[in-house]
């Protein structure tokens, strides 16, 4: 287990390093991205641009520039070329909103995905299953930008049931926090609920034909116990993988649209604005932030997998 963790950690660092290089190089080849020009402002003289370029080290060779930037990322000295604000502070400000959105949505999609998937599998072919199947397909088919617009129009504009956006810190007003997040949570979670319930349903239907399920019935277990302890338990293993990957991806940028539409001022929204402005420092920092969570949850999935499926442990320790 220890060796496994160390190996995964090294792989994580390698992936993050590669991503940072790619972001840095892409930024340096796209047109109209000269940072000195941006720092100097709209009506800058060529002399000013040149002196800024000199002062900020943009004349240095690329590896040196990369090194300087990475040092700043990790020491918290990274400054936006557009607003001249500290990037790490901006990200830190966005984190509560992003985490609130992602964790809340994840809890919703995981619990309802499992609940609906379970009901659908247990009632396979019957009315409950058919209704849930249709609902799941509808859920999967609704893109976030459309769903968010529909929510905003009907639930905040037509019927003033929910606020139209903004983020209220949990520490200030827990009720307001949840109230403001209900629509963003649903917007982000619905597509996953549909997807997870379909995956779980088909996993469970496969598992119901397994020999060990017949053994469980032959032991005289109650149908409920057979379904939960033997069918559901074994069918959840792939769901855990999916969840780890999806949750990492949502934290790492998948929630950008939702954040932007509901004006949550989270990390995703900050990323979206930085990309619009071709502002390298925040793009770099936010990309690493997102990639970190994606890679981290990938590693956690592997660990959780070994915990859920004992067959994997043996292969690891035998190596």
């Amino acid at each position, binding site marked *: 287990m220890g060796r496994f963790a160390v190996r995964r950690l090294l792989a994580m660092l390698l992936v993050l390093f590669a991503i940072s290089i790619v972001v840095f190089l892409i930024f340096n080849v796209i047109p109209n991205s000269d940072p000195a020009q941006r720092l100097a402002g709209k009506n800058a003289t060529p002399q000013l641009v040149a002196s800024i370029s000199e002062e900020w080290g943009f004349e240095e060779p690329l590896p040196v520039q990369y090194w300087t930037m990475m040092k700043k990322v990790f020491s918290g000295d990274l400054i936006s070329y557009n607003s001249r604000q500290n990037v790490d502070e901006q990200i830190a400000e966005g984190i509560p909103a992003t985490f609130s959105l992602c964790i809340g949505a994840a809890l919703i999609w995981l619990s309802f995905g499992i609940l609906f998937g379970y009901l659908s599998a247990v009632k396979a072919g019957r009315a409950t299953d058919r209704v849930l199947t249709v609902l799941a397909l509808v859920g999967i088919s609704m893109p976030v930008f459309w769903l968010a617009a529909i929510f905003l129009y009907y639930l905040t504009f037509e019927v003033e049931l929910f606020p139209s956006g903004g983020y209220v810190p949990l520490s200030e007003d827990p009720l307001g926090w949840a109230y403001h997040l209900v629509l963003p949570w649903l917007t982000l979670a619905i597509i996953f609920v549909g997807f997870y319930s379909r995956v779980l349903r088909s996993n469970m239907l496969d598992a119901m034909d397994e020999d060990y399920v*017949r*053994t469980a*019935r*032959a032991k*005289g*277990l*109650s149908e409920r116990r057979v379904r939960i302890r*033997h069918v559901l338990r*074994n069918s959840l293993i792939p769901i855990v993988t999916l969840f780890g990957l999806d949750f990492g991806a949502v934290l790492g940028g998948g929630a950008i649209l939702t954040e932007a539409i509901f004006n949550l001022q989270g990390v995703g929204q900050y990323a979206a604005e930085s990309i619009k402005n071709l502002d390298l420092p925040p793009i770099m920092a936010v990309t690493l932030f997102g990639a970190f969570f994606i890679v981290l949850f990938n590693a956690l999935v592997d660990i959780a997998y070994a915990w859920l499926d*004992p067959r994997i442990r043996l292969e690891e320790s035998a190596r």
Partner: protein
Amino acid sequence: MSEPLLAVRDLRVGFVTEGGLLQAVDGVSFDLVPGEVLAIVGESGAGKSVTAQTIPGLTRSPNARIEGSARLRGEELLEASEAELRRVRGDRIAMVFQDPMTSLNPVYRVGDQIVEAIRAHRERVGEEEARRLAVEMLDSVGIPQPERRADAYPHELSGGMRQRAMIAMALALDPDVLIADEPTTALDVTIQAQILELLRRLNRERDLAIVLITHDLAVVAEIADRVLVMYAGRVVEEGTLDEIFYDPQHPYTWGLLGSLTRLDRERPERLPQIRGAPPSLLDLPAGCSFAPRCPHAFGRCTELPGLKARPGEASGHRDRCWLGPEEKRGRRELDGRIGLEEPA
């Protein structure tokens, strides 16, 4: 003869499929007395597993059509509620299946799976006592270091050990009947012999009645007291082990016996086989379902023969064939390979 433990009468099991009603079991009857090993033999699709699994209600489904009667110590099982059946399953009728690789849940420890079986029926048995009992059972089926093996996951045990663990689980509650559905088919020959030896020992020591489902006559010869030969959902011959092996009456039984390898005879170029394939259960021939493959079929075989003892004999040796006793003897001997010599 003692009172039957399990009495099955005219069991019929059909499944509604897109192609129509598939009659998997068509009128099977048998008695099982305490301490007896009854083998049900036949090819794939003969209905032997469906027969065995229907008795404890494992084939129940909205598509299944189950008729007839199966009484365990007089208690009707086919009409029992799901809750009543649950009390029977695992406690009074236990089962062991073909593939020990897939029959244990891969994510739980072997010992825990046995404990689960015990506690499903004995609410008052505590976790620790159940665990002690599980270890004891593992020990009694010949698993070395049972304490340690109870903590193992199924994939950490060999196929033979897993099948022993399955048997331990099945016997943990001291059932009246063990249904063993192809218990040795997925195992190596040497392990097969060990598992059969174990079943025979348990049969003797515990007076355990066993219904053994198999397609392998060598397995039958090892352990069975009585044999039911099934073909296309029907019993075509039944009798004691000696009757079936030394005086087989039905051409299908001759075919099965003829296809065995024999150590006491010169090895033939090719093993004899029954020509053709079993009929589709959705499209059975009228009359005797074996007739299309039977080298001895004649005009009358378009009518279904009853399962009868030979005229003038009141024995339990019965078969479903129109040929007369003399004809059978003649043809069986003509074939040369079929039937074994007189009992030793």
